[in-house]
């Protein structure tokens, strides 16, 4: 069980909720803490109500907790919009500004610990003061963050606004801290004011969201071309790459639509330049036909698909794991390709890098399934322990030039991977084709060519050694959870809590979703008597996918629910206890 402190800062548009939250997280990083911050907004395009949702801890943490320990409301504008997302602990503290009226019933009903702090009035006493800075000082104090860390961060962040701004902000922080002091909670689950963390290591830690991490991982592995069409919640990957690709000799093109972006990537990759595009469900749908082309013509590329609530336009700003079906089964014809998913925010970088290496090694499209919760939640994480993998393509080496046309682009090889030429290589000329073709790439309708190429393309995926990255296995209980993606951390925390209750639960989190690593999975399940499949979906797409390919323990419980609310450890733990109780009755 991770000792941690969860808090929310809420308020109307313009109140500066997100600034306060972000500075708080940054300060926690400087103080050697770990933590994460999610953002939630009302429906207004801009200027609507907002909530910064944080969790701070002394150990790496990527799952939201079940309930919030602290709610700081800059005002009450449309707070009922966030009520679902803001379950308060029974003993949660609510800090409210009496200047903004009575505590709304949805909040008041949840806790009795309410303190009133005149944030606005306090800020008004300071020339240039802002209530959100008062709230920051107060919140940091209640969360047990050292004042110095907050000050350092704020000084740096406001430096470009001039000394007056900085002075005003520091005064606000002080005012907030003093207001908090009187109400400092007795039991603080995180360590005290003075962090014990090694400051050098702490300063090396990464503070980033999954979208940035994805962009970085892709670039590190060798991506040098990106075609972009913006879509929430994937745009940050594209924007991050747009700013960095030119500095490593790469290029980004803004496309007219996703049909163009995927085909631009195909063109670049055909030209030998590793390529990636990022999108979300609606955009992925538009790429489907061309992904099939990339399969048939054996073009490597990566699509980072950042899932959001579906179907159709759905809920663009909320998370769900419901593009698994389209990612794995969405192509027409028999179109084997690879689908991988990071198991957390920090894991986005190595898994994106791995996706690029798989695409290049297997000459096939790879879909990287991230989601809004991973992509847009900011976390403090240890940097990758090992260097990120770098891509390598099996390249064509010109043979004797006589006869010059002997190159067989789609030659049958034992592992199904054929050396790939690209324009510029003399003697490597061929025509890449989405029509059924011979080993030379010439269109064919013959059974032997069709079956031969289908076999070859399946073979290269099935025979590949995916190594240890296929998944993570933790523990060795006879009860197991199988999960993936952003469900991994909540599930893992549920396992940790179960262990604290004396129940040993094995956690298996898959990174390789397709081709499903059946042998590895079944080996990881050895000795498991009952199993639970955990995912963030309405119908259990992951469960069906596992059933289709693997033998699962009996009983296997499919546990899932859709967005927009995030999965929380407590509900998974509850399901685990339910499964265990069933098991005991049966035994």
């Amino acid at each position, binding site marked *: 069980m991770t000792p941690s402190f969860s808090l929310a800062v809420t308020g109307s548009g313009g109140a500066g909720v997100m600034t306060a939250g972000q500075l708080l997280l940054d300060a926690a990083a400087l103080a050697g803490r770990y933590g994460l911050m999610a953002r939630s907004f009302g429906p207004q395009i801009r200027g609507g109500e907002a909530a910064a949702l944080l969790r701070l801890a002394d150990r790496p943490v990527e799952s939201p907790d079940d309930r919030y320990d602290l709610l700081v409301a800059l005002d009450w504008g449309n707070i009922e919009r966030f009520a679902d997302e803001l379950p308060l602990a029974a003993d949660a503290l609510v800090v409210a500004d009496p200047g903004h009226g009575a505590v709304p019933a949805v909040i008041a009903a949840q806790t009795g610990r309410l303190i009133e702090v005149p944030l606005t009035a306090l800020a008004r006493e300071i020339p240039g003061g802002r209530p959100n800075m008062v709230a920051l000082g107060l919140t940091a104090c209640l969360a047990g963050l050292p004042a110095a860390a907050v000050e*350092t961060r704020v000084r740096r962040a406001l430096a470009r606004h001039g000394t007056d701004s900085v002075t005003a902000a520091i005064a606000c922080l002080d005012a907030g801290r003093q207001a908090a002091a009187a109400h400092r909670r007795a039991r603080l689950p995180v360590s005290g004011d003075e962090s014990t963390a090694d400051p050098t290591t702490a300063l090396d830690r990464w503070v980033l969201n999954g979208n940035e991490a994805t962009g970085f991982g892709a670039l590190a592995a060798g991506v040098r071309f990106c075609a972009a069409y913006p879509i929430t919640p994937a745009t940050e990957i594209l924007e991050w790459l747009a700013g960095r690709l030119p500095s490593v000799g790469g290029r980004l093109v803004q496309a007219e639509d996703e*049909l*163009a972006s995927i085909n*631009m990537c195909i*063109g670049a990759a055909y030209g030998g330049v590793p390529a990636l595009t990022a999108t979300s469900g609606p955009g992925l749908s538009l790429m489907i036909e061309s992904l099939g082309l990339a399969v048939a013509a054996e073009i490597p590329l990566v699509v980072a698909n950042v899932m959001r609530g579906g179907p159709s336009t759905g809920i663009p700003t909320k998370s769900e794991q419901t593009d698994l079906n389209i990612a794995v089964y969405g192509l027409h014809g028999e179109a084997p390709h690879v689908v991988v998913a990071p198991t957390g925010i920090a894991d986005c970088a190595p898994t994106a890098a791995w996706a690029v290496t798989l695409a290049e090694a297997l000459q096939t499209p790879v879909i990287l399934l991230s989601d809004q919760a991973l992509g847009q939640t900011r976390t403090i994480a240890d940097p990758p322990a090992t260097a990120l993998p770098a891509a390598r393509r099996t390249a064509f080496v010109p043979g004797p030039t006589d006869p010059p046309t002997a190159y067989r682009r789609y030659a049958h090889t034992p592992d199904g991977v054929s050396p790939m030429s690209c324009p510029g290589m003399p*003697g490597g000329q061929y025509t890449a084709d989405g029509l059924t073709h011979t080993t030379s790439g010439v269109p064919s309708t013959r059974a032997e060519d069709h079956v031969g190429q289908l076999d070859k393309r399946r073979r290269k995926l099935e025979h590949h050694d995916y190594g240890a990255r296929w998944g993570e296995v933790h523990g060795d209980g006879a009860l197991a959870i199988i999960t993936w993606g952003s469900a991994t951390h909540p599930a893992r925390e549920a396992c940790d809590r179960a262990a604290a209750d004396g129940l040993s639960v094995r956690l298996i989190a898959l990174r390789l979703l397709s081709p499903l690593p059946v042998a590895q999975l079944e080996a990881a399940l050895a000795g498991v008597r009952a199993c639970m499949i955990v995912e963030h979906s309405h119908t259990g797409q992951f469960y069906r996918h596992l059933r289709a390919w693997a033998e699962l323990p009996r009983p296997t419980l499919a546990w899932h629910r859709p967005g927009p609310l995030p999965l929380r450890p407590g509900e998974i733990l509850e399901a685990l206890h339910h499964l265990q109780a069933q098991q005991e009755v049966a035994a």
Partner: protein
Amino acid sequence: MNATVVLRPKDYKSATKPVWCPGCGDFGVLNALTKALAGLALAPERVAVVSGIGCSSRLPAYTSVYGFHGVHGRALPVATGLAVARPDLTVIATGGDGDGFSIGGNHFLHACRRNARLTYLVMDNAVYGMTKGQASPTSAADWAGSKLTPDGPGIAPFRPLEIALSAGAGFIARGFSGDPNGLARLLAEAIEYPGFAFLQVLSPCITYRPEQLEYKALVSAGFEPLADRNAAFRRLLTDDGFTTGLLYRAPVSAGGSAPAPADLTDETATLAELAGEFTAARLRGAADHES
């Protein structure tokens, strides 16, 4: 290939036998293309021909250069990605009127604007040949030869040259497959244009539009190259659709600017720097102010 070897047009042809109907206009286009490439003495491995789907889109496989036969309507984005990522190559996109103006119409619009360095050659037969003869965007409103539109499509035909000009293309020409030499000259000029060059080629479908055999009598080399966009517009106002030649050639990059070429050398030092922007140290300004 050895650079000193002189290449003839037939060296740009592959051994694959075209699936085209005997007499199809696309044979003339293939001939013109190989002539143009030979005339420019381009090494086959430095040329890529990218197409969509249709009879005409089969062309890449009949050449000895690099080819890409993609999906219906997407030749231009593939060619754009290739041209941007590999500015050292000569990139030619090609296909039919259905491929380019119907399903691919949006890419046509935006390729004209984007002005990447590539040539786009459309074999226009005013019909969907491959799917057995339905109306294409360039079919006449009253062409009633398809079961899908038994009374004709009934709508105004698409005007490729006008659209290209409105959309910002800098090189706009019309050729005829029945005149492979003239077409080869136009193509060579298009290939050498340092931006997006569009070439509509009247290329008869003798199977589903046998009346197009008359094109020979209808075409006339009437365009005089113009460098002024407004003048080109005025010229098009009296276009009969059968005038061939170079209509418009904008001074380089008048119509937009091609994305700058990528430098594909790895700079791993920079990569470490990029990782640095994620560190907590940056949040206190250490990286900027100290050390």
